[in-house]
């Protein structure tokens, strides 16, 4: 009689165990950043203290140090600026390209699209050495512009791929109708397709921006002065003086950078997955 319910309860409990254990393990470092940010150094450095709780009253010292005595603010601004320009470059190039590829007749569009997507798989760790030469030739070494020029190499392929899927889902009849109604192809693209794909374009904006904030290898390779650094490289390399780790400020910096990006990304996640799984999920 109760067997069915019993089995259901067991399964439910097991599911919750998995959720709680995995959730705790995956989110733990962020909890750790949070608690470290507000702990006094004397609390952090006392091995007798229980590290999970505040043994001394919380403090804002680490945040003060981070914002007043380090270049953290500068790095955040640098990253935001680079992100903005990269987003603009990406949109200007990717939106028309994706539309054209989506509407290319025959197998050509699909083939080119896959080719573009494959370039996304070419990793920075293969290209950074030749690119460092290219950056030097362009006279951009050690400037924020070096990464601004290079970042579209990975934001473009993914954005084109994502937007291609988007444009393909808009029936071709609509273009035809617009052209029958007297618009040129370019007119149809600007007046019809762009307004119809606002949410796809917004997704691309978010992803291009977050990809920029997450990038590490190129910024580490091309930029050598602290003042020009992005936040992803600045925090782990320049916030450490010699061998001294200011853990409180470091973790504060980590927390402040991670969580907003996390929230931003999470909102647009479903579209992002669509881009990755492509045809594999129907």
């Amino acid at each position, binding site marked *: 009689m109760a067997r069915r319910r019993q089995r259901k309860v067991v399964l439910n409990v097991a*599911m*919750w165990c*998995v*959720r709680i254990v*995995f*959730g705790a393990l*995956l*989110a733990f*470092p*962020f909890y750790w950043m949070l608690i470290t940010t507000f702990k006094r150094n004397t609390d952090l450095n006392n091995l007798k203290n229980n*590290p*999970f709780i505040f043994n001394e009253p919380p403090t804002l010292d680490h945040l003060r140090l981070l914002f007043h005595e380090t270049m953290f603010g500068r790095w955040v601004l640098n990253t935001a600026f680079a992100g903005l320009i990269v987003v603009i470059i990406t949109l200007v*190039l*990717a939106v*028309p*390209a*994706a539309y*054209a*590829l989506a509407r290319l007749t025959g197998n050509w569009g699909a083939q*080119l699209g896959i080719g*573009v997507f494959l370039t996304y*798989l*070419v*990793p920075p*760790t*293969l*290209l*950074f*050495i*030749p*690119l*460092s030469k*290219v950056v030097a030739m362009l006279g951009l070494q050690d400037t924020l512009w070096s990464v601004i*020029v290079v970042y579209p*190499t990975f934001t*473009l392929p993914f954005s*084109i791929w994502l937007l291609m899927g988007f444009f393909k889902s808009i029936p071709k009849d609509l273009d035809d109708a617009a052209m029958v109604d007297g618009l040129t192809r370019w007119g149809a*693209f600007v007046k019809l397709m762009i307004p119809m794909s606002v949410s796809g374009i917004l997704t691309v904006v978010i992803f291009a921006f*977050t990809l920029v904030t*997450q990038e590490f*290898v190129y910024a580490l*390779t091309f930029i050598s002065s602290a003042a020009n650094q992005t936040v992803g*490289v600045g*925090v*782990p390399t320049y916030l450490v003086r010699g061998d001294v780790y200011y*853990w409180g400020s*470091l*973790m504060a*910096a*980590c927390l402040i*950078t991670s969580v907003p*990006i*996390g929230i931003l990304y*999470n909102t647009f*996640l479903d579209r992002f*997955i669509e881009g990755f*799984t492509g045809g*594999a*999920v*129907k």
Partner: protein
Amino acid sequence: MFMPAILYIVALVGVPFVMAFVYSVSDAKVGSVHYHFVGLKNFIDILHNPTFIRSLENSFLFTISSQILVLIGSTILALALRDAFPGRRFLRFLILLPWVAPVSIGSLGWKWILDSLYSVITWVLVRMHLVNQFDAPMWLGEPKLAMMSVILVHTWHMMPFATVILLAGLTAIPSEIPEAAAVDGAGFFRTLFQITIPMMLPIINVAVLFGAIFTFTDMTVIYILTRGGPYDTTQVIPSEAFFTGILGSDLAEGAAISIFLVPVLVIAAYLALRSAHRAEVT
């Protein structure tokens, strides 16, 4: 309309890709303008370099073991996230953080958690009387432990990505299929292993292949946590290429090292395309 984007990608991905091969058979150095063809000298040199051989081995160890852990973990987690439950959105956000937070920043959080003196893990183990406080494990300072640590941190970083992709595959299975299995007399595990997982195989392939490419070509976790140390025991191909080519100024040899990424990339890209194609046919 797609030409500008294609040209951008060709100029900054295609050309450097070819340059990487050109450099690998030259004697290019940072700062010098002249270089000569030296044949396979660089390749012969690095194949005689025990550090390189070690990094090659490590790359495979790092990739394969972290991907196995990711696969098992993300499958279990995706199953636990499939059905609606209170707090699902929040848990998904928490679980995603390791993937969306800049990886250098997340790794920095782990560097603090794995600190040689103040590690919270050590603190817990001491309290449980599993280790002696005065002979505490050096999580990042002993070769075996350091390798284990970077593998686990990378697993932590990649797990969310695989989970959301598998989740997309899981929710794409029509609900009538598991219902039919239930009516046909299959219990939880039979349905899981004979119906659900086999049906998800194409999408699992996608997740594993992308994960493997990202892992095999990444150096961030290792750079932040160990810089390849202690004594180059956690060096992988990308980090070895970085240390040799950029920090060591030997562009040619660095390029030659990074060329070793190419065969794996080509195979993975081929498999990814094939499995995506297959999934589409199904």
